[in-house]
């Protein structure tokens, strides 16, 4: 067979082969791919790390309703990205307070009640925050200084926040952690319980390193709140004024030093009302002493707390700058609200909102309105750094 004949006979085969290959290779169907988040690819997988605030804890309790009011949920909506929560069944675990005076909780249930998790659970959890968490708890559940609790098991199944976050392969994270590194000391009136700044920095750095190792492309770091500003703490003089106004029973005495030398001493609500007033209501004579009671925060202790928070936040901002991430100082807004009188100096326990519109019934945790405010501030901060256009409704 000569060469020309070979060529003529193979020509149709050549075209047939090419056609068959094209048919077989086909094309990728774009409809098979998941949609990109409306906020941009940066937000394809958003994970929130934090403590009770980020988890949605309000009024001394947490349930699915409150979890869905949390700022990261609002932020995720603005991003247009899926955001799965480890939802707790109502009435909660524990159910939130519905009456500050009586201590009644949702459903009339006790404070140690837990309604477990909703099932089926999501495959991936985006809000990995756990109430009570300090910075160290993001890294590990067991060991000295950790404060893992029942909700660590219920929300994350025994994983750390970082372990749970890694399963989502996050592209963007928000981190609001560190409040509990000072809050416990403030409520106990013991600055020795503050997490030392160098330990805080070491743990915070480790957390950021591990997040970076997950391939995170961007983030928002939120500074530690100045816990002395929250309405859970009132100055001694406010208690003196309340006594003069007849707010307390005769068995509850406010020492004169609260109106004079101890005027700037801060009194935790949980101590004054939860312990002293409760005892007074039982007929026991109690005295709030603003100079000698170790459970209160002296001006020196308050100053130590504020300075520590400032040192924490300076470091956090440096880390955000180093990584090119966004940084939000919550204390700017917090002090603004305080100066506007939106955060009451002393709780009006007979009002619907004893701690004002921005704090829930425990005086520590933000209300739904505050979460909206945080989400708006966070969105604006992210937009400024990343050139995005997140809008929180």
């Amino acid at each position, binding site marked *: *067979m000569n060469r020309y004949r070979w060529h003529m006979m193979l020509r149709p085969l050549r075209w047939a082969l090419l056609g*068959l290959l094209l048919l077989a290779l086909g094309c990728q169907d774009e409809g098979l791919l998941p949609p990109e988040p409306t906020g941009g690819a940066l937000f394809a997988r958003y994970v929130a790390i934090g403590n009770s605030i980020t988890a949605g804890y309000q009024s001394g309790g947490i349930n699915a309703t409150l979890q869905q009011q949390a700022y990261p949920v609002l932020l995720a909506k603005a991003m247009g990205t899926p955001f799965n929560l480890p939802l707790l069944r109502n009435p909660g675990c524990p159910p939130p307070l519905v009456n500050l005076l009586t201590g009644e909780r949702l459903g009339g249930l006790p404070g140690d009640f837990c309604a477990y*998790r909703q099932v089926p659970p999501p495959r991936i959890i985006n809000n990995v925050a756990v109430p009570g968490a300090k910075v160290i708890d993001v890294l590990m559940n067991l060991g000295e200084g950790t404060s893992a609790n029942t909700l660590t098991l*219920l929300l994350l199944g025994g994983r750390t926040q970082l372990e749970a976050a890694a399963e989502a392969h996050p592209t963007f994270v928000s981190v609001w952690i560190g409040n509990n590194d000072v809050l416990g000391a403030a409520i106990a009136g013991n600055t020795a319980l503050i997490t030392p700044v160098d330990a805080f920095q070491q743990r915070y750095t480790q957390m950021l390193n591990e997040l970076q190792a997950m391939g995170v492309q961007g983030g928002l770091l939120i500074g530690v709140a100045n816990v002395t500003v929250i309405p859970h703490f009132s100055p001694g003089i406010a208690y003196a004024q309340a006594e003069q106004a007849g707010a307390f029973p005769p068995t509850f005495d406010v020492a004169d030093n609260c109106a004079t030398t101890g005027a700037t001493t801060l009194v935790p609500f949980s101590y004054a009302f939860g312990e002293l007033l409760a005892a007074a209501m039982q007929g026991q004579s109690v005295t709030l002493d603003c100079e000698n009671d170790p459970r209160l925060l002296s001006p020196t202790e308050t100053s130590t707390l504020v300075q520590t928070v400032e040192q924490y936040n300076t470091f956090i901002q440096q880390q955000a700058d180093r990584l090119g991430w966004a940084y939000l100082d919550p204390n700017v807004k917090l002090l603004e609200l305080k100066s506007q009188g939106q955060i009451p100096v002393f709780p009006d326990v007979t009002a619907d909102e004893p701690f004002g519109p921005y704090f829930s019934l425990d005086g520590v945790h933000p209300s739904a309105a505050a979460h909206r405010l945080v989400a708006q501030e966070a969105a604006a901060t992210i937009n400024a750094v990343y050139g995005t256009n997140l809008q929180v409704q």
Partner: protein
Amino acid sequence: MGIFIFGTKQTFTWLEYIMRTSRGPMLPWNRKRLLAGICSLLLSLPVFGQGFSLNPPGTCTLGRGGTGVAQPCADGSAIALNPAGLMLLPQGAIASGATLYLSRGSFTDDYTQQETRLDEQPVLVPHLFAGIQAAPKLAVGFGAYTPYGLEIRWPRTFAGSFVSYRTRVQTTYLQPTLAYQLSPRVMVGAGPILAVSTIGLWQQLDLAQQEALPGVPFAALGIPLGTSFANVKMESNEAYGLGGHVGMLFQVTDRFRIGLRYLSAIKLNYTGTIRFSPLATGIVIPAQVELSGQTIPAGTPLDVVLASLGLFGPQGPLADREAETELTMPAQFAAGFSWQATLELTLLFDYQWTGWSAFERLTIQPKGGSPIVRIQDYRNTYTLRTGLLFQASSILEVRLGYIYAQGAAPSKTVTPLLPEANRNLVTLGTGWRLGHGVTLDIAYQYVRQDDRRGRVVDPAPGTEPTPALNSGLYQISAHVASVTVSVLL
């Protein structure tokens, strides 16, 4: 908070894998051994047809796109393509060779965009055909071939491992065949089939979905979805079934021939064993909890708690069990033609219908327990095959082929068990006559399955699967290479 009160009574109703023992037809020991030897040649086949069907067997057939109902290859593979075609053998033939399958595939999760790849291991599958003209109008032959088979392996870390991380269906048809020439233009053939089959299913059990308390699954206590705590291996003994294969050829003109064949459905009843083995969850209880009135301190491994329940003991809910199930290998009907356009060029076309609707559900009946039902709802399918034969010289034939195979699985049952879809296959082959009646056949096939969305989880017990459960993209392709040496007797 004293919230975790685990029940002392275990309620693993989901795992009542208790089977009834039944014995299939018994064969004399030596015959069973013979069958096992033959079947061992045909094990571990990946999926390259539709459902869990395979390519028509043989290197020559593979090169021409699996066509051959009207003109089977002259190597004895007519037994599987069209029994009547055995009459086309000049004298007799025996063919031996092997096919190498290299499948590639992955699942890409919609959300994490993480890709899990199939365990991509090449599989070598030998094949053997034989036939002979016993009389002027009569041919006989014997074939051992595998129309249905499946081997899918995923890594155990795959999210779909709770549905299945390994599935195996091995079915060999043993078919003695007679072909007879009714007239110069009409040939018929038929043969009974003894099907020999085993199935295997490997999966993990998810602790999150099991009950810790009546009505309270571990997931409600925070255990993450996808927490493996037990490995399950279900393997059947050999099952046997009977069927038949008939075919007919019409020599319409000297250059045009039509072929028809029908392969009956074969129902197989399997018995086997489900074996459970514990897997470490690695979970450490992070805080002190109360369990059935007992305090479990922080730092206690969950596996210690599970071990204390005696789940895998002889009387435990996860003790090894016997089970039975049945599977129907579907019927096939094929029609095709061959047309010798010129002395050098022959065009082949086959249409095949496969009764996949027989695979409605897979029901595993544990001994004394509730059946485990996997809804499949396959649909009947068609396959179109075209082949082109080019006689380049007196000793060299070049073959081309193209196959379109419709997927049998509906959108709701695209799972790790069998992530199936429509397929396009192209083939290239050659046959080289070496002399003395010896022919060397070489073929290559590229398999491109349409990307298809699927799921990695099962629906809740008692509920129907839906496409809403699909959470990612399955992408499958394969390379197939085959070599056969055949001898004309």
